[in-house]
C-alpha cells in the first residue's frame, strides 16, 4: 500500500499549497472579518442613520445629525476628556507599580517569593470582573472597610468618586501590565547587569540606561491593555463612580434610545486608541513587541 491511499487528506494538502493555506486561515479569517470587523462596521454605520424621535426606531440614511449633536453639547467633550484622563492615570499608576515589582521579582526575590508574588498578581484574575468591582464597592462605601479601618487614624476614604474609579480600574487591569513587564525583565540577560556594574554604573543608572530601554515594548504592550480597557469601561463608573460619567456610561444610556449617537460616540475611544497606537509606533516599540 502506498501512503497516498492511506492518508489521502494529508497527501492532498501536501500537493496543493493553496488548499493548505486556505484550510489554515479560513476559520480565523471568517472570525476576524465576518464576525469581528463586520459587526463593528455595522454598528458604526448606524452613526449615520436616522432615528425616529417618537419610537426610537432607526432607519438607514446618510446624515451627520449624531455628530452634530456630539459637537453641540459640551458635555460630550468633557466626558471624553475625563475618560481619557482616567485611562491615562490608570496606565501610569499600573506602570509605576509594575516596574519596581518586576525588578524585585525577577532579580532579587527568592524562587519561593517569586512564585508567591506571581500567584498574588494573577489571583484577582481568578475572580469575576463584577465580583472585583463589588469588592471595591464594599471597601469604599461610607461605613465600609476603608473608613472603619483608616478612620482610626483620622483618614477618610475617597467614597464613590473619580479617584475610586481609577483605583478600581487599576486593580482590575494591573495584572495585564505587571505580567509582560515582569517577563521582559526576566529576559534581560544577567551579564548586562554585570557589564553595567563593571562600567561603574550604580543601581539607578543601570535601571535608567539598561533596563528601561529594554522594557519599553513590554510597557507599551501592557499599556495598550490598561489604556483601552479603561477607556471602554462603564460598570466601574456606575458602581463605584458616584457622579462620574464616562464615555461608556453615555453610550449605555443611548444605545436603546438613540443608537446613532451611541455609535458616533463609540468612535471617540476608537480614535483615542488609534492615536495612541500611532504614537507608540513612532517610538518603534511596536516592532519589538
Amino acid at each position, binding site marked *: 500500500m502506498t501512503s497516498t491511499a492511506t492518508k489521502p487528506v494529508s497527501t492532498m494538502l501536501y500537493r496543493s499549497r493553496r488548499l493548505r493555506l486556505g484550510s489554515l486561515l479560513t476559520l480565523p479569517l471568517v472570525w476576524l472579518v465576518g464576525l469581528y470587523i463586520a459587526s463593528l462596521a455595522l454598528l458604526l454605520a448606524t452613526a449615520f442613520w436616522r432615528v425616529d424621535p417618537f419610537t426610537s426606531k432607526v432607519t438607514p440614511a446618510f446624515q451627520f445629525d449624531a455628530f452634530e449633536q456630539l459637537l453641540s453639547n459640551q*458635555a460630550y467633550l468633557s466626558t471624553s476628556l475625563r475618560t481619557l484622563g482616567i485611562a491615562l492615570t490608570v496606565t501610569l499608576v499600573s506602570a509605576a507599580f509594575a516596574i519596581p515589582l518586576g525588578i524585585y521579582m525577577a532579580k532579587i526575590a527568592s524562587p519561593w517569593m517569586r512564585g508567591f508574588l506571581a500567584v498574588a498578581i494573577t489571583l484577582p484574575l481568578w475572580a469575576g470582573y463584577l465580583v472585583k468591582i463589588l469588592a471595591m464597592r*464594599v471597601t469604599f462605601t*461610607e461605613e465600609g472597610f476603608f473608613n472603619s479601618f483608616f478612620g482610626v487614624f483620622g483618614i477618610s476614604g475617597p467614597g464613590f468618586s473619580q479617584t475610586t474609579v481609577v483605583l478600581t480600574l487599576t486593580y482590575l487591569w494591573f495584572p495585564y501590565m505587571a505580567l509582560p513587564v515582569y517577563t521582559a525583565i526576566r529576559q534581560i540577560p544577567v551579564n548586562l547587569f554585570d557589564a553595567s556594574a563593571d562600567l561603574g554604573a550604580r543601581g539607578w543608572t543601570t535601571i535608567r540606561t539598561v533596563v528601561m530601554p529594554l522594557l519599553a515594548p513590554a510597557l507599551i504592550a501592557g499599556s495598550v491593555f490598561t489604556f483601552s480597557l479603561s477607556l471602554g469601561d462603564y460598570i466601574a463608573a456606575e458602581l463605584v463612580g458616584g457622579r462620574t460619567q464616562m464615555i461608556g456610561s453615555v453610550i449605555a444610556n443611548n444605545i436603546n434610545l438613540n443608537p446613532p449617537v451611541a455609535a458616533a460616540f463609540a468612535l471617540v475611544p476608537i480614535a483615542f486608541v488609534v492615536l495612541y497606537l500611532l504614537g507608540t509606533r513612532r517610538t518603534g516599540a511596536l516592532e519589538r513587541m
Partner: protein
Amino acid sequence: MKKRYRALPAMAAAAALVLAGCAADAGSDGAGGEITFDVPDVPMLEEKGDYEDAVDIIAWSGFVEPEWSDAFTEETGCVVNRRVAGTSDEMVQLMRTGDYDLVSASGDASLRLIVGGDVAPINRDLIPNFGDDIVPGMQGQLYDTINGKVYGVPIGRGANILQYNSEVVTEEPTSWDIVWEADSPYAGQITAYDAPIYIADAAVYLMYHEPDLGITNPYALDEEQLAAAIELLQQQNALISEYWSDPVAQITSFAGGTTVAGTSWEILRKLAADDKLKGTLPVEGSTGWSDAWMISAESDAPNCAYEWMNYTSAAEVNGKIAMNFGMAPANGAFCETSDEAAAHCEEFNALNEEYFENVWYWTTPIEQCLDGRTDVQCTSFQEWTDAWVSVKG
C-alpha cells in the same frame, strides 16, 4: 388621574371624542381619546381558537413565576417561556425582534411600542377578567389607550417614593426639597435615578414650586421647561453621593451609609429589610409607573397570549404578582380575598386613588405635547437623553 389629560379646551376634547367614537365598543371610557396619534393599523384578534404550544413573554423580574405559570400551563397546555428584562428600553428592543408574544410594558415603553406598530390592540371581549374590578386609575390611561383603542391589560402600579434614613433624617420630610435645593442639610448624601426619565422628577418639583414655568405634565416639556429641569438637576448633581440604576446598588448605598435620602421604589425599601429606612410621598407628588401586558403585532401564539392576559388579570393571580413584586395590584377585587391581601393593598395604596392622583406614571416624552398644547413643540426622549448627558457633565 384622568382629568390630567383633559387639558384641552372642552370643544376640542368633545370633537376628539366624536372622532374616536368607536372607543365605546372597545369598552374604553375614552379618556385617552383627546390626543390622537398616527398609529399603524394593526388588526386585533377577533375570536379565540385553539391554544398553541408555547407563549414567549418579556417581563420584569417577578412577573412570571412558576408559582402561577405552572398552573397556567397545566390548564391550557401553553408552555410559558420567560425572558426577564432590566429596563423599558431593553423591552422595546426585544419586542421589535418579533420573537416574543407578550411584554409587561411600563408607560414609557408602551407609547413607543404602539406608535411603532409593534403591538396590537386588545379585544377586551376575549379577556373577561379585564372588567370592572380593574381599579379606575389604571383604565383608559394615555399610555395604553390611544385613538380609542385599548393596547394594554393593566398589571399593577407604584410610585417613586422619597426614601430616607430615619437615623440621619430624623423628621419625616414633607417635601422633595432636601434632594433638590443647594442648601440641603444632606448635601453629598443624596441619590438619584440614573436615567433620562428622571428629568420628569425635576419637572414634578418645578411644577409645584415654579408655577410660572407653566408645566402641567412632567412628560410634556417645551425647550424652556426642559432647560429649567436640567438646571435643577445640575444643581442637584453637587449634592449627589451616587446615581443608581442598579436596584441592588441603591440598596447597598443606603445600607452602607453612603446615601441617606433619595428616590426609591417601595419594593427596594422592603428588600433592604432595614427598619431605619422609611419612605414617603412628599407634597409635590412624584413620578411612578404603571405596567400593562401588551401583545405583539407579530405574535404567533395569540390564543395562549390572550389566555395568559386573562389568567393573570384574575384577582388571585394578579394579587400574587403584585405581592411578589411589591406593587399595587390592578385588580381591586384581590384586596378582599384575605387579610393578608387587604394589608398588602393598604401598604401599597392599591385602592387609594387620591394617593395616585399625585403620581405621574412614566410616559414617553414626544414632540407632540402630551398636555394638549399645540402652539409649541415639546421635547422628545432623544432630546432628554442628550440633555441628561449634561447633567453629569
